């Protein structure tokens, strides 16, 4: 089963939950950091990375001698990556989405494939499990193609040996978060019961519901707002699989870069229970 650990708001504890969940997972798992803009999982699970690969997007490069400035490539490009100044074609590869339309319409074969670096894909072992992460290049605006490259690699790893997949997802409700949630069997939303947290949690729930994915909830830093959050979850049939209390010692454990499942036996037990409840939830969702 593939579990996306997601949230609307950033900083609600996705990575904290993903890392500790991975540390108690009772079976083979692929632990994946999909927050390629701000990848943090490795800071908690300390992987031994053995492989590294640069991921590129195919963009056009102009063979000037072949170009007749017909403007067809400019006309098909919806992303303002191609302009025509008089009889001179100008390419803006940073704007390119890699749709390949310009290659398809150039009758002169004046456009050659070139590459724009999207970021890195790194893999290895962590917590005795297979680990993979993406890291976007600073200055790169598009993250979905890098995410797709990481997801493809995970498919390859699953063919080598079956496993459950824990996807530490990007925050928000837009393209990066949805690219990951779409590939999950179930989505675990980590929610913080503050006004900001509750607001963004509802946005995330709406977005994931539109994808038709079963949603379960982990409440982090449970406090006065928990009742309102629980009421919403009850109304929408979202099971709350875990409630983490607000404890300064947990915050400091996290701040030192340690797993909160290792803060005390009670904290570990919370994650062991979460893992088993998640398995039950996924099984039921699959049967439904």
């Amino acid at each position, binding site marked *: 089963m593939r579990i996306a650990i997601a949230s609307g708001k*950033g*900083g609600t504890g996705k990575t904290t939950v993903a890392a500790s969940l991975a540390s108690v997972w009772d079976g083979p798992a692929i632990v994946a950091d999909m927050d390629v803009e701000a990848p943090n999982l490795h800071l908690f699970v300390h992987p031994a990375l053995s492989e590294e690969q640069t991921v590129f997007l195919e963009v056009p490069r102009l063979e000037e001698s072949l170009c007749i400035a017909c403007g067809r490539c400019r006309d098909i490009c919806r992303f303002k990556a191609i302009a025509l100044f008089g009889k001179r074609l100008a390419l803006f590869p940073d704007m390119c*989405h890699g749709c390949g*339309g310009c290659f398809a319409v150039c009758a002169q074969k004046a456009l050659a494939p070139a590459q724009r670096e999207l970021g890195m894909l790194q893999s290895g072992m962590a917590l005795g499990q297979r680990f993979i992460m993406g890291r*976007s290049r600073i200055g790169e*605006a598009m993250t979905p193609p890098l995410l797709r490259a990481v997801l493809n690699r995970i498919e390859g790893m699953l063919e080598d040996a079956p496993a459950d997949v824990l996807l530490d997802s990007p925050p928000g409700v837009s393209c*990066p978060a949805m690219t990951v949630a779409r590939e999950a069997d179930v989505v675990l939303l980590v929610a913080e019961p503050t006004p900001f947290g509750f607001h963004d949690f509802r946005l995330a729930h709406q977005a994931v519901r539109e*994808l038709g994915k079963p949603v379960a909830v982990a409440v982090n830093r449970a406090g006065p707002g928990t009742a309102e959050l629980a009421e919403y979850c009850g109304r929408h049939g979202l099971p709350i699989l875990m409630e983490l209390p607000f404890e300064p010692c947990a*915050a400091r454990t996290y*701040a030192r870069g340690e797993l909160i499942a290792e803060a005390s036996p009670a904290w570990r037990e919370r994650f062991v229970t979460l893992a088993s409840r998640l398995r039950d939830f996924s099984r039921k969702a699959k049967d439904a």
Partner: protein
Amino acid sequence: MREIVIISGKGGTGKTTVCASFSYLARKATLCDLDVDAPDLHILLDPRPRVTEAFISGNTAVVDAASCVGCGACAALCRFGAASLSGGKGSVDALRCEGCGVCVDLCPAKAIAFPEKHCGDWHISDTRMGLMVHAQLFPGQENSGRLVTLLKRKARELAREHGLDMILCDGSPGVGCPVISSLSGADLAVAVVEPTPSGRHDFQRVAALCDHFRIPVAVLINKADLNEQETARIEKECLERRYALLGRLPFDQAVTAAMVQRKALTELPGELGGMLRRAWDMILALPDARLKGRLLG
């Protein structure tokens, strides 16, 4: 006109809390929530929209089954895995469609429509702290970068129209498309940083992005007492990189308490409000950031 954007790299470090606090102190500013994905500033500012408009951006390919001849050209051309041939007819998965229009333009049967997408709504509102420009991208929608660019353009127009000399923006986490759009044309990035391994790591990434665009950075460390060592490390890095240090805020339950009351910390009595006031005064006293950027560049 000065444009200030609040960023962090990592989410949940306190951008919106800080932005609301500064909004209350800013005298002649247009306020702007650029976190169009998961906007929260409106929760504290209680905006009353005077203008609401649809954000129409991009298109989605839709196959008309009646005209489709089942040639499969769309599936062969699509680089996003959105178009496929099933049951002898082409179809496009709207969630995967990038809106590039290649299948639309090159369909031999001209069987693919390309309707525009209503991705969200944006507003110009009145708040107790001044004019505010904000938006909500519909959950699961795209083009957040374009919406950010639109909001910034509206904020600049408003500022000019009303004789305001500052645009104060709440940003989004990460270093991708919406953050890059947020930073475009900014005079100063104020980074709210949490002294944790994640906080420092992601701050370094977003600071590198600001350096790349030659935007000066000022740093406010939030929850500074969570890890004194990390705090000291971040401060040292800031000095080395010549980022202005705006101070340390302690980890304090007053932050959530203010949020529950829908108030900015600077509106309420308390130690945190005073610290944020001093940070704001330091920002105002920074030399004209844009000019400095040019001289250094």
